[in-house]
């Protein structure tokens, strides 16, 4: 057999293997459309945020919140600063493109006490972003997160199983169960024997915040959280929505997000996990937000559901 024939046989075998893996049921249309959509946006620069808060950390404040974008929220209760799922990079996992700049510069966070990581997906445990943050923080991870977390130089790291509580200096942070999916790279979910995703409830100085991270709707879990805590503010994801049958198990849509808000019995809801990255097959960046706005007006929840702009900071308790 000639050298050319060997090469052809080799190439043919490789192409058949590649084609076979791409044709796995469930993988084809969604991933093809998602990847096409993502690649289409890769060369585009993210839209700018007109006014970025230069000094988001106060000397002292009752309760302030700032939506940086996606699931990244900067919260301050009194003298403690919390940052959730920090992502400041232009892509999540090389492919998913940021469409709007982060609401603040990471360098403007000059003090940070806790970083909360809800799960290990690229858009929530983002290595590039974590490298930009002050090293004084304690990083809290979901169970199993340590196997996916390189050393960033933070002051401490903790893995938290559901319903366990971390306590320090008057701060209580409890990991609470939510509904999402495992792994970081897709197929690694096949050998993870536990849930690498969580929500968090932060309690400090009489204020209670629920951060749902990224979740689908599970009434049992959220009602239990609502019974255990008197929540002041709930950060709840509302996107991606489409394809709905595919997404609904792991991503709450605006209707379900409002149901979570109801179940956890929070006073105020702030929607997150929308508008920021190319996600799923939602027809526009504001697809989920527009749906939520309609529902909020229908149900007269304007005073309780705060739809923040990216970079917008609110002082909820002076």
């Amino acid at each position, binding site marked *: *057999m000639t050298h050319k024939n*060997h090469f052809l046989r080799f190439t043919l075998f490789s192409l058949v293997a590649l084609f076979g893996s791409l044709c796995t049921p469930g993988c084809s249309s969604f991933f093809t459309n998602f990847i096409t959509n993502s690649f289409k946006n890769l060369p585009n620069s993210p839209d700018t945020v007109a006014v970025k808060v230069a000094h988001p950390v106060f000397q002292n404040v009752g309760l302030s919140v700032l939506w940086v974008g996606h699931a990244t929220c900067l919260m301050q209760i009194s003298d403690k600063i919390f940052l959730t799922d920090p992502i400041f990079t232009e892509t999540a996992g090389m492919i998913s493109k940021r469409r709007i700049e982060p609401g603040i510069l990471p360098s403007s966070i000059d003090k940070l006490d806790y970083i909360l990581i809800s799960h290990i997906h690229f858009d929530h445990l983002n290595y590039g972003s974590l490298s930009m943050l002050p090293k004084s923080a304690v990083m809290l991870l979901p169970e199993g997160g340590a196997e*996916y*977390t390189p050393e960033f130089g933070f002051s401490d790291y903790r893995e938290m199983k559901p319903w366990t509580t971390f306590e320090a200096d008057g701060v209580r942070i409890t990991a609470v169960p939510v509904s999402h999916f495992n792994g*970081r790279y897709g*197929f690694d979910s096949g050998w993870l024997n536990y849930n690498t995703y969580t929500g968090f409830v932060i309690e400090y100085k009489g204020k209670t915040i629920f951060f749902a991270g990224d979740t689908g709707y599970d009434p049992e879990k959220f009602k239990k959280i609502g019974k255990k805590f008197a929540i002041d503010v709930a950060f709840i994801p509302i996107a991606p929505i489409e394809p709905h049958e595919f997404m609904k198990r792991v991503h709450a849509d605006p209707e379900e997000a409002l149901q979570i808000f109801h179940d956890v019995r929070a006073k105020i809801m702030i929607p997150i996990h929308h508008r920021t990255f190319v996600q799923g097959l939602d027809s526009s960046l504001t697809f989920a937000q527009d749906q939520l706005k309609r529902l909020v007006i229908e149900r007269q929840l304007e005073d309780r559901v705060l739809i923040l702009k990216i970079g917008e900071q609110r002082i909820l308790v002076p």
Partner: protein
Amino acid sequence: MVQKRTLWYISFVLLVGIILLAGWQKAAAQEQEQRSGISNAWLLMQAVPSVSWTTFSTRTHFAFEWEATPILYSWGMTKLDPPLHSFFVTQPERFAGSVEFIISTQLYTSQVGASHWGFSGQVLAHLPLVEHGEYLGFNLGIARYTIAGISSNYFVGGFSTLFGFLHYNIKYSPANETWMHSIEVRFF
């Protein structure tokens, strides 16, 4: 002929050894705690071969390659993650900074000498370059390959990308001036 039979015997022993060790690891992990580790899904992913081509003085041979990591020492993770790993290694444990001992077997699509099989042992260090190595890392090490009954030492250099799944390594043996290129797919 004897040489061919010997190589088949070695490959059989090697494969059985890998399966037994992996099975032992899986059982040990199950006894300790139900965390991540060797599972049927993991074993299935290990069956996906890497590809390599070796340029000898007269011609180029293509091969499929299967690799296993009996031991890896990781220095790039937090204190929560133990540094020593055997067979089951998550991608960050490798690309965030590690050195590993790799055993592998190659199946050549054309006959090399009297055989289609090759075997190797490698010591390879992974050094992170971009995003703690998840986007880009540098590989450096040494390897010993036995192909068609002839053993040679190689210097290894290359890079890894795409979350540590894709490695491109170039191996060079000064003794017999042989170049080897490999595109390695590492699924944990």
